[in-house]
């Protein structure tokens, strides 16, 4: 039973800027925005954030630490042309808020009479239905979830030598108020379980991991159990005990559905964040309408997938984001904008402005980046490869925005020989160039999968949660960075 409401749809607010004696009223919002613009800025916003986190880490079957805490504050941004003044306060004290507004205001040097700002509360859609946030689940019950994952990993095989597991949950609320008058509030839940396993056999030691979650509460574990993560981590470690050195050189690569979406995130997504294109530093600059991939490739950034780790009801500039079609049938359709780049390109703000916390400025960022399903049979795709690599799990990726070169690191991969998946391969790096690699996509499966929520994207030192997804895809040529030349 949830005493806060029977429909379990909308999480109750607990942020002190929304509820209680320190709730921020519309008069103070209007006053702070007025101060922010009094030197002549074009636009200002306030970003109130409340973040309550709880984490437990278990090492080798024993709780190592219990942590958590509350972070609270407000960031003030003043935009003057493309210049940004930024300051923040780590409290809700009106004097500190006004002081931050005065500091941020200094980006402009004029002074003007600011017309009164009429504040209107805007309602955000609901893209995450959370029954009970994990943050509120009693500690002993959260420990029990970790213990189940730990036990399942150990039970998988006698060669499992060590298991570590962690559970992090967050209740975050934001209130974004801008000088055009819009005020939007959102409650953003997040949880993530991670399990990592070391397996040993004779002289060999290998590891495997599994993780997942999203904008879910306790109901996540009805979809994916702790045992699933424990067993999956153990499976990967055991597979890797038999891994052999990977080949080196250019060859066909088949990407498994789901986590392989990291390829899109690196090869396409970052290069289409509009700040790089506004600055003309991306290899995709000025190429809207041109072919940048095989005609089988359609890529979207979709903030609205219910429960996905990258989903948002409202972006960190207060815009309600919609699905962005980035590449359609191989043709570049558009960029992901924050307010500054949208203004520069004369387009509507598209809801891609995100930030790590109230201490940071928003930047154009991805949410859930996906390749839509094609028509090919996944089995048939593998059968079509004479010699190549089947890529299944990854530890991360990176891209050089300017020249488009991207890498991603394989933690579970296999050789494909004569149309069959054969030997597991040691960890290996794959490297390619965005448009050149995507031009070699020759088959796209009908088996779209969304990755279970475990990815975090870093840009300019700011981390935000993201989602990825794709079907089975064949690239005719990608460079595999093994040792067997």
């Amino acid at each position, binding site marked *: 039973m949830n005493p806060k409401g029977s429909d379990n749809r909308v999480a109750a607010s607990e942020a002190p800027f929304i509820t209680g004696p320190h709730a921020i009223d519309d008069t103070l919002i209007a006053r702070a925005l007025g101060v922010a613009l009094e030197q002549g800025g074009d636009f200002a916003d306030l970003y109130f954030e409340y973040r309550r986190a709880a984490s437990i880490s278990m090492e080798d079957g*024993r*709780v*190592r*630490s*219990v*942590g*958590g*805490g509350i*972070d*609270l504050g407000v960031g003030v941004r003043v935009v003057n*042309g*493309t*210049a*940004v*003044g*930024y*300051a923040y306060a*780590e*409290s809700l004290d009106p004097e500190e808020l006004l002081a931050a507004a005065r*500091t941020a205001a*200094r980006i402009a040097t004029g002074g003007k009479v600011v017309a009164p700002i009429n504040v209107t509360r805007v309602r955000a859609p609901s893209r995450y239905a959370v029954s009970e946030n994990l943050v509120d689940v009693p*500690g*002993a019950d959260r*420990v029990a979830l970790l213990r189940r994952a730990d036990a399942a990993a150990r039970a998988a095989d006698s060669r499992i030598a*060590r298991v570590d597991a962690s559970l992090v949950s967050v209740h975050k609320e934001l209130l974004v108020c801008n000088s055009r008058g819009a005020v939007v509030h959102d409650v953003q839940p997040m949880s993530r379980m991670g399990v990592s396993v070391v397996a040993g056999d004779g002289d060999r*030691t*290998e*590891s495997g991991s599994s993780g997942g979650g999203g904008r879910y509460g306790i109901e996540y574990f009805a979809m994916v159990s702790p045992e699933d993560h424990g067993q999956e981590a153990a499976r990967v470690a055991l597979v890797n005990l038999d891994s052999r050195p990977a080949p*080196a*050189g*250019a060859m066909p690569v088949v990407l498994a559905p789901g986590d392989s979406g990291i390829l899109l995130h690196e090869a396409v997504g970052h290069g289409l964040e509009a700040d790089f294109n506004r*600055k003309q*530093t991306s*290899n*995709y*600059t000025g190429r809207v309408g041109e072919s940048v991939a095989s005609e089988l490739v359609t890529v979207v950034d979709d903030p609205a997938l219910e429960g996905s780790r990258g989903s948002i009801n409202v972006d960190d500039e207060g815009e309600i984001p919609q699905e962005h079609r980035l590449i359609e049938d191989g043709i570049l359709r558009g960029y992901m904008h924050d307010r500054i780049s949208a203004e520069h390109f004369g387009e509507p703000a598209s809801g891609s402005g995100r930030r790590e916390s109230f*201490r940071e400025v928003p930047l154009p960022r991805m949410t859930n980046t996906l390749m839509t399903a094609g028509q090919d049979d996944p089995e048939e795709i593998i059968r079509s490869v004479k010699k190549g690599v089947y890529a299944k799990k990854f*530890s*991360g990726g*990176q891209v*050089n925005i*300017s*020249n488009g*070169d991207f*890498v*991603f*690191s394989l*933690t579970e991969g296999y050789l494909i020989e004569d149309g069959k998946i054969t030997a597991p391969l*040691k*960890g*290996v*790096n*794959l*490297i390619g160039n965005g*448009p050149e690699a995507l031009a070699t996509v020759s088959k796209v499966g009908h088996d779209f999968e969304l990755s279970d929520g475990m990815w975090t994207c870093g840009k300019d030192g700011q981390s935000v949660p993201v989602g990825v997804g794709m079907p089975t895809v064949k690239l005719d040529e990608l*460079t595999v*960075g*093994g*040792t067997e*030349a």
Partner: protein
Amino acid sequence: MASTSKTPEILARLTGSAEHAVATLRALGVDHAEVSVGVGNELEVGVRKDEPELVKEAQSSGLSVRVMRSERVATSSTTDLSKDAVEAFLKTVVEMAEISEPDPMAAPPSPDELADASALPELDLFDPETDGIDAARALELARAGERAAFAADKRITTSEGASFSRSSGHGVLATTGGFVGTRYGTYQSLVVQAVADDEGGKKRNGMYWTGGRFFADLDDPASVGAEAALRAVRTLGASKMPTGQYPIVFDKDAARSIVGLVASCVVGDAVYRKRSYLAERLGDAVAASGVTIVDDPLVSRGPGSRRFDGEGRAVRAIPVIDDGVLSTFLLDTYSARKLEMSPTGSASGGGGIPHSSVSNFYMLAGELEPEALLEGIETGLYVSRMMGFGFDAVTGTFSRGAEGFLIENGKLTRPVGEITISRNLDDILLGIDAIANDLDHRTSTAAPSFRVDQMTVAGS
């Protein structure tokens, strides 16, 4: 010891807060606690094409704590340093410890192991000039850097911009064991990122930066900008090179990245968690003779320097790999107990779960001029930049993206990119056959350029 007129006053205030928190925790019945209180001051500015892009100024504060009660541990942090808020916060943390489980290994250092707080080393980490650099001056420094990049080469067509940032911090670590230590430092840096146009819509970016504890130690903006421009244009026309085995020369930035991987394998946490290929190798030759890697928290003006560790232990320089032989791991109290070894004063932070960590971790310089590393190489690869996370600490498997230059007959001939280099880290370290004399302490993890006898390049 006063570095600015404000420093003693700030430290006295923070010491008062930390001691009050320790007293509160004692009254709440904890067996042990570490409290870290700190305040910071930062300015960050960016310019692009001569125009300001960002001016960000902020003051921050924080209190973080680790408590132990009946061998149960909890940690948390808050930004609200008011007395009432701190007292309520500490009560919650002590309650959090209740849901933890007893962990007999989680013991604090005994009081006689703590550093002598009255005789902490003076490491010259605080520049009184830093906080006085205002936004206008910072913007001018960034502008000067970017202008120099545009002026250096007409092929520089655009810019990711240039940025200058400065920060200062004061902090106090206090423990129920009786340790009360102060720390304070500054840091500033200037970054310039220049971009040139290449064939087929590709851009080539060149990044260069300068940074340090003292403003006067920074390179001048003009030289930073010129170097950024050079780094962009020298990669114009980069293409793959043929797949094969080649000798590899790592420039000092790439070399530093390799040394950073070694760091991740010699910290106690990785060792006791069986997440290091070096876990069972103490006393073995794990690198070529002549390779010495140390962790030295006492480097004057060092970016990674610390007066005491996160548990209040005294710190000292530690040879980790001594002439090729793995001589010790870097251990905090917990990892030392797990491994039945002696702690090395290598706990990070303070007021959180201590983890073993590096301070200034670097490979000692050799005697060769950097150019001499190329001598005798018929065909090889000079690596100036690496990409990706392709390293498995458990096995040492290494495979990463690389950019650099082809070496032919002892000379750099053309830029190469979109290739990977791979070999097990164990074999890379054992394969180091020449070390240059160009080590600097611009970064906390550092290395001179060095050469490895061979690695696999995957390219065309």
